[in-house]
């Protein structure tokens, strides 16, 4: 098996909740819908631990597609560097009344 790609850092762990489908972020206590509360890892060891947590949660049928997402620390909330993940963390840009952007002051 190919070795896992080294994560770009800092990073957060993002997944979809299995039951609801909603985008969720890993924290020290489990998962949150609030991107501001996402656990930010700064080094490779912490990133590995987060990745392992995601893999276990996937096997426990709690989340789908867990993945580490590279971020930059913006005011109040970690902001994914790639535009796709940034959209995912906010909600549809054409419907500011929906998604995280509507539920949390980001």
């Amino acid at each position, binding site marked *: 098996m190919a070795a896992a790609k080294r994560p770009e850092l800092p990073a957060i762990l993002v997944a*979809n909740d*299995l*039951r*609801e*489908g*909603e*985008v969720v972020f890993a924290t020290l206590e489990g998962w949150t819908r609030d991107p501001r509360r996402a656990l930010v890892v700064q080094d490779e060891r912490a990133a590995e631990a987060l990745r392992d947590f995601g893999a276990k949660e*996937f096997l*426990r*049928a709690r989340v*789908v*597609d867990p993945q580490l997402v590279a971020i930059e620390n913006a005011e109040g909330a970690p902001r994914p560097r*790639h*535009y*796709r993940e940034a*959209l*995912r963390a906010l*909600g*549809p*840009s*054409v*419907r500011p009344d*929906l*998604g995280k952007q509507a539920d949390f002051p980001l």
Partner: protein
Amino acid sequence: MYLYDEFDERLVRERVAQFASQVERRLSGALTEDEFRPLRLKNGLYLQLHSYMLRVAIPYGALNARQLRQLGFIADVHDRGYGHFTTRTNLQFHWARLKDVPTVLGLLADAGMHCIQTSGNCIRNVTADPFAGVAFDEIEDPRPVAELIRQWSSLHPEFEWLARKFKIAVSGAAQDRTVMKSHDLGVRIVRDAASGEIGYRILVGGGLGRSPMEAQILRDFLPRQDLLAYLEAALRVYNLAGRRDNKWKARIKFLVHDIGVEAFRAQVEDEFARIDKAKTNARPAEEARIAAFFAAPPYENLPGVSRKLERSIARDEELARFVEHNLTRHKRKGYAALTISLKPVGGIPGDISSDQMRVVADLAEQYSFDEARVTYAQNLVLPHVRLGDVPHIFARLKEQGLASANVGLITDIVSCPGLDYCGLATARSIPIAQALAQTFADPARQKDIGELSIKISGCINACGHHHVGAIGILGLEKKGAESYQFTLGGDPGDSYALGELLGPGLPAEKVPEAVERLVAVYLARRQPDETFIETTRRLGLAPFKTAFKEIADAVA
């Protein structure tokens, strides 16, 4: 309109129960995601960027008031108050919750709807001419054939696990309004010139996506009684010979392209000769049973011109524009097919709120014999409207923001959901459509430009049909940013053409300016009564490329 019989009803209910059990097992962890994914896809359920998305089948785009109201109810109770009509005339709910999907499927079944085969590697929802049964240029109503194919292809045991998805369109008119040549298989109702007999021309191997191809004629004339046997032969050859080793080469178009249409035809004809036709073809009694559902409604005898409508038009410039652009000639005197544009300037192409669904349901019930249709251009149609009722319908639509008089014009933009919703997308498409609609919002300017189709896809899969847009726009990722490629000269109809690339990709903010430049070339060089696409055909790509290059060079 077709209504479920006891067999349809049982089949759908059993499928709901089956999927409910599969969801339960997934939520308990008894099924892994790898095991569950193909099962949920068979039921139209995707996992997208923000949430699950549930795709509801609207067979050949036909809806009645009860179904529209039920979709509105589901949108309010189980989603976020709206739905999105797609280029395959389906409806997508973008905020589905897995735990609620079995309930939603039950609600759909209550109104004679389902999500079966709206996804996955199977025969997808069959599409047809949105003006079926009312078009003035119609040879025969395609809906009975489309319904027959729907029934034949639903849970067909041999074709449940094809190499790839398979899309069929049916048309019965002189003019193609189904993008037939972009389909895996097309069924065109034709009249044999010599005998006067009605039968089918079968096309094969069309498709868009990363390798767009134009469908070719497989059988020029097929006697009508042999339709299902012939379709079965074509599907069987594909199912056995189509590639399964490479997802990107697995559509039927690659098989037809690789071995040539003559060789493919020979294999289909061999298979067709072997098939037990009496066992495979539909029985005439069943065909007649289906056809009876599509009998013409009880039209009134009306004069060809409505004085009431004429008087209203004289008083109301907006209504006049609406009548000019949104009404289509009906085969019956005194009636029209009325297109409801889901493209308000600044809106999201194809989106409809639950309130709007209910208003369209009321209008369909009151004024169009309880029928509405969905078009592949993401609009709705009230197919049987009395001309004298148009002013009242227009007023009701206007109250709901549904009276945009832009059908076929530059702001009637087709757009996939793009990266605002779709997990496969590489760029956003809706904001591009919105910016373009705002740029060309002035009704007088739209009228001056005339017929012009802009089609936008947010990735190479081409759900926004960009290859067949007069101006096609494809959103890609370039160096970590959204970038938009332009094609020119695409045509979805009888003069079918795939657009040609104009140059390198542009950033989003340059897209409106680029379209302005292309339109300026057309306005400067058009001949009297020449449409945009006709001018591009006459002039070729060169003058448009030159205009485009000025913008592309400035960006570079």
